[in-house]
Structures are given as C-alpha cells and as structure tokens.
C-alpha cells in the first residue's frame, strides 16, 4: 500500500471557472496547444468558485481560489510560474487541502499534469478575494494585487451580445463548454508577476474535477 492510498486524499470539485489570458479571442491552447498571443507566451488569471467540493471528509464548498500563471512558451513546454491565492474565509485546514489539490499533490487531472509544467510556485497566499461568478459578467479582485472583469463580445454592427460558446462534445482542454467573452480589466501586480492584458481572451465555464 502506498501512503497515498492509506490516507485516501480523495477529492472532487465542482466549480465556476473564470479564466482570461493574453491570447486573442480563440486562445490557441484550446485548439492546438500553442498560445496565439503576440509574444507566443501564456499569461493567465483564473478564478475558481467552488460550488461544492471536498477532500476526504473536509468540506470545501463556497470557497474562492485564484490561480495566476505564466509560461514563456506553450504551456506543455514548461518553465511556468504560478501563484495560488486562497480566500481568507478558508480555514487553515481548507487552505492546506486546496493548496494540495491545486498543486497536484493528490493526483487527478488537470492539476497533476499542470503541476509538471511549473518550475516556480508561490503560495498559497491567503487574501481577501472578491468574486462574482456570472455567465457574462464574471469578475474577481484582490485589492492592490489583481483585477479581472469579464464582459461579453459585442457585435460591432448592431451592438448586441454575440453569445459565443466553445464546446467540446468529447471533452476539451480544461472544460467542455465555455462561454466566450473578453475582459475590461485583467491585471496583476505581485512579486514575480506584473501584466495587464485588457481586451483579450476570456471564458466562463463549469468544471467538475476529481481524482
């Protein structure tokens, strides 16, 4: 018996995922593994609102998590850096559980595969997170650190919401159905990260992950 089996560490998370990055509107990683940003890099801010979730018997519902990450080239080529922020509403035990899950320590996709692409990981940083999960106008902020606000893609001809989805009937890169928008705010300033990519790719999706 390995120690992982002995202590179980079974987790499951059902979350709102609010993501945005420096790619143009399609986000190349979704389709063919390579970012289509000008620099060929990936710089992303992803907010997670845990609708229901647990690690073994520990309840993780209604917690908020933010993942800030950057890779110099395609994500799978590695050398990524990331910071993990967890809302101050989480108890010390919950912070430990979320940090363990998000850094891939308990196994389970996609965290375990992602963990292999990072060379530097900072956190978990416990901070006051404001987060609104909404199909069209999601947002999350940490005062003086980061600010993300989604906004729908507007048809330039008639000013109407274009209502764009990307769906993967057979399972996608991270999610199966994403509501695609753009950002009116997307910035972070914290130690190793300082970027601002307003007006690029944004997606809101529901994800169900487990190990």
């Amino acid at each position, binding site marked *: 018996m390995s*120690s992982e089996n002995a202590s179980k560490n079974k987790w499951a998370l059902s979350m709102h995922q609010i993501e945005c990055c420096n790619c143009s509107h399609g986000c190349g990683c979704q389709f063919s593994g390579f970012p289509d940003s000008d620099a060929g890099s990936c710089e992303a801010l992803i907010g997670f609102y845990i609708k229901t979730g647990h690690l073994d018997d520990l309840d993780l519902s209604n917690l908020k998590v933010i993942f800030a990450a950057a890779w110099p080239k395609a994500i*799978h080529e590695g050398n990524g850096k990331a910071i993990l922020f967890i809302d101050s509403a989480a108890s010390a035990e919950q912070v430990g559980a979320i940090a363990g899950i998000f850094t891939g320590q308990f196994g389970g996709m996609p965290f375990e595969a992602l963990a292999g692409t990072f060379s530097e990981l900072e956190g978990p940083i416990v901070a006051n997170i404001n987060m609104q999960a909404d199909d069209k106008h999601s947002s999350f902020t940490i005062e003086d650190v980061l600010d993300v606000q989604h906004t729908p893609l507007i048809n330039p001809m008639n000013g109407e919401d274009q209502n764009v989805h990307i769906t993967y009937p057979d399972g996608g890169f991270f999610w199966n159905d994403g509501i695609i928008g753009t950002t009116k705010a997307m910035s972070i300033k914290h130690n190793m990260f300082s970027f601002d990519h307003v007006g690029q790719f944004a997606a809101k999706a529901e994800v169900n992950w487990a190990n």
Partner: protein
Amino acid sequence: MKTKFIQRKLGKHILSLSIFSMLFAAWYYMFFLMTMNMAPVAQWSYIDIIMLFSMWAIMMAGMMLPSAMPIFHLIEQINQKRKLRHATYASSLYFVLGYLLAWLLYSLIITLFQWWLHHLTLLSPMMKSSQLWFTCALLALSGIYQWLPIKQYCLSRCRSPLGFLTSSWQEGINGAIKMGYIHGQYCLGCCWILMALLLAFGVMNLQWIIALTVLVAIEKLAPYGLVFSKILGVILMLFACYLAVATLNT
C-alpha cells in the same frame, strides 16, 4: 546503500536514457546497417519480408520518437512527482511502448503494401518508385492530405499534449500503454502518408529520411506548425506538378 543511491540517480534519467539509446540505435542502423541488410531483392522470401518489416519498424521509431518528446516529458514529470510522494505510478516507458505499438502496426501494413508494389513492379529492386506517375500521384496525394480536416484534427491533437493528458488520462500499466497507443494513432493520422513518401524516393534514402523527420518535427513542435503543414502541402503538390512537367519535356 550504494546501489540504492545509483538506482535513485539513474531512475530520474531512465526515460531520457532509454529514448536516447533507442534513437541512437535506430539512427545508427539507418546510417550504417540498413543498406547492407537490405540487398536488392528480386524474389521475396518470408525472411526478406521480416527484414523489411524490421527496417520499417526501426525507421519509424527513429523518425517519430523525437517529435513525441514533449508528451513523454510531461508524463515523466507527473511520475517523478508521484515518486516523491510515494504514490503509485506506471513507468513512462509503458506510454512509449504504446506509442511504438501504433507505429509497429503501421510498419506491418506499409511492409505488405510495399511488397505488393514490388509485385506490380511500381518499385524498383532498390525500393524506389520506378514509375513517374506513381511518384507524382504519391506526392500529390500527400500534398492534398495535408489540407484535409482529418490531418489538421490529428495534428492539433499531437500538438496539444497537455490537452490530451488532461482529457484522456488513464491509470496503471494498461492505461499507460493504451494512452500511448491512442496518442500514437493521432501521430499516425498525421504522418502516415508523409512516411509513405519514402516509397517514392527510395525507402532507404537517408536524405529523405532526415528531411521527413525534420518536417514532421516542425509540424508538431513549432508554434506555427499548423500553418506550416498547409504550406508543406502546397509545396508537395507543386513538386508533383514540376516533376511531371519536367520529365515530360525532356
């Protein structure tokens, strides 16, 4: 104590060492042994066919393993982390095995196909196309294939190893072999006809073997590989036309 230390040190590099040895052996064979082993064949015995099959298998391993390195590396990263926390894992080599199985299957099919072509005398005993129309048809077809949705779909899958792992992960040894086999099939869907181009220019033509290995690597590993694959398609089609016109004019 000492052997344990060596095991641990070696364990970290076992995947790279194995793949490096496989590549070294495959390319050594292609550079120095292949033409000696495969004398021109007029009458095909079953031993000749087995030799031909081994040749294809070794060539495919040598040509296709380099561009699959990113996904091997990702799986190895996952395994290294699991090892650190004493969790169960299946060696990355099982994934490589699955990947090679897909290409082994292809090698078998193309060996039989080549044998049939020899029967039709479309290939010379030097394993090279002996008919201009056959060369041109193969080039044109491979050029067209570059533009087909199935090629672009498979290439996208090949170029997104992280997406493949997050959506198709399977546990255990069988799981690793299966994943490798499935990923190998995407690479097959991508490259089978490019590899078959060797029938046009000589199965043992080293320049073409190297050129195709590089072209496949660019398609799979470079940021603009998808665009490149379509440009390559146009070049192949133009090449077919050029060969046809140039030869007809002389």
